């Protein structure tokens, strides 16, 4: 039971300042109708309870899921297995990431239906899955992080120069929402698992970096969608 309280406290610490700022804004600047403000209060409580349960679930189950799978992958010594597992886990954990779900719904609303939310969702997930695979292979082969970062951001910047501006802003938002409460721990746990089994690899330099690299994927994917769509 104390674990639940501890998580609840954690969530309050992270959401509390936001709630305070919103309340301050309400009385000073925004003056939204009372009904909207009440709706905000009820919704915040739901979101806080939900986030607490989500963190709990990640701690209890999803983290070990990532760790078990990551640890089992290198044992077979098959690159195909490692790569396809990275694709599958990258895709599945992004599709279930709350931040990504919220962003793709917002995009659909703002575009008035011209971009369907599930299309955006799958494009983001595919981009992440592809780069997560590259990042996983980096751990296996020990490629230096800097070359991959330069190549990833280089191609994103080049693409950004010739797609319509609205895709550029969407793409970079999409890159950052993929590093949320659900996909980040699962992916990091998997990377740690892989690097802990491989000899001569340290968890610090190899276990981390996967999420950072992988989040360039959605940026490139949405930019490519912009190139094809325009």
């Amino acid at each position, binding site marked *: 039971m104390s674990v639940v309280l501890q998580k609840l406290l954690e969530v309050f610490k992270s959401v509390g*300042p*936001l709630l305070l*700022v*919103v309340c301050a*804004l309400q009385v000073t*600047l*925004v*003056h*939204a109708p009372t009904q*909207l*403000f009440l*709706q*905000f*209060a*009820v*919704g*915040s*409580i*739901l*979101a*806080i*309870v*939900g*986030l*607490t*349960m*989500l*963190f*709990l*679930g*990640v*701690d*209890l*189950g*999803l*983290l*070990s*899921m990532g760790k*078990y*799978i990551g640890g*089992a992958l290198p044992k*077979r010594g098959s690159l195909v297995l490692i790569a396809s*597992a990275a694709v*599958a*886990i990258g*895709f*599945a*954990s992004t*599709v*279930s*990431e*709350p931040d990504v*779900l*919220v962003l793709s*719904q*917002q995009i659909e609303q703002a575009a008035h239906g011209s971009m369907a939310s599930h299309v955006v969702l799958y494009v983001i997930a595919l981009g992440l899955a592809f780069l997560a695979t590259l990042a996983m292979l980096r751990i296996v082969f020990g490629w230096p992080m800097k070359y991959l970062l330069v190549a990833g951001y280089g191609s994103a910047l080049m693409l950004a120069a010739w797609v319509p501006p609205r895709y550029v802003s969407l793409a970079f938002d999409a890159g950052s929402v993929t590093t949320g409460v*659900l996909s980040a721990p*699962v992916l990091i746990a998997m990377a740690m698992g892989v690097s802990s089994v491989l000899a001569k690899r340290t968890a610090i330099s190899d276990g981390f970096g996967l999420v950072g690299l992988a989040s360039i994927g959605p940026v490139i994917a949405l930019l490519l969608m912009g190139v094809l769509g325009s």
Partner: protein
Amino acid sequence: MHHITIIARDVVLAIVPLALLFLLFQVFLLKLPLREVAAVLKGTLIASFGLFLFLLGVGLAFLPFGRAIGMALASLDRSWPLLTMGALLGF
């Protein structure tokens, strides 16, 4: 009510692939003891219920209210409050 069913569908669509993937790994590769499998699935179930509540709350609270804040800030004729608020809320 319609809203709730859509969110529930989103959550199921989100969590089921991850859970299936784990079961697939379990059958062909991991072969963990049943207790561990049950723990992982229990965590997944709690997480998906949390995800449902969280998305419901965000849809109810933060999206409409964030919009109201944004519109109020953008209609001010000076830009500094917008910049300060952007920094504050981002923090």
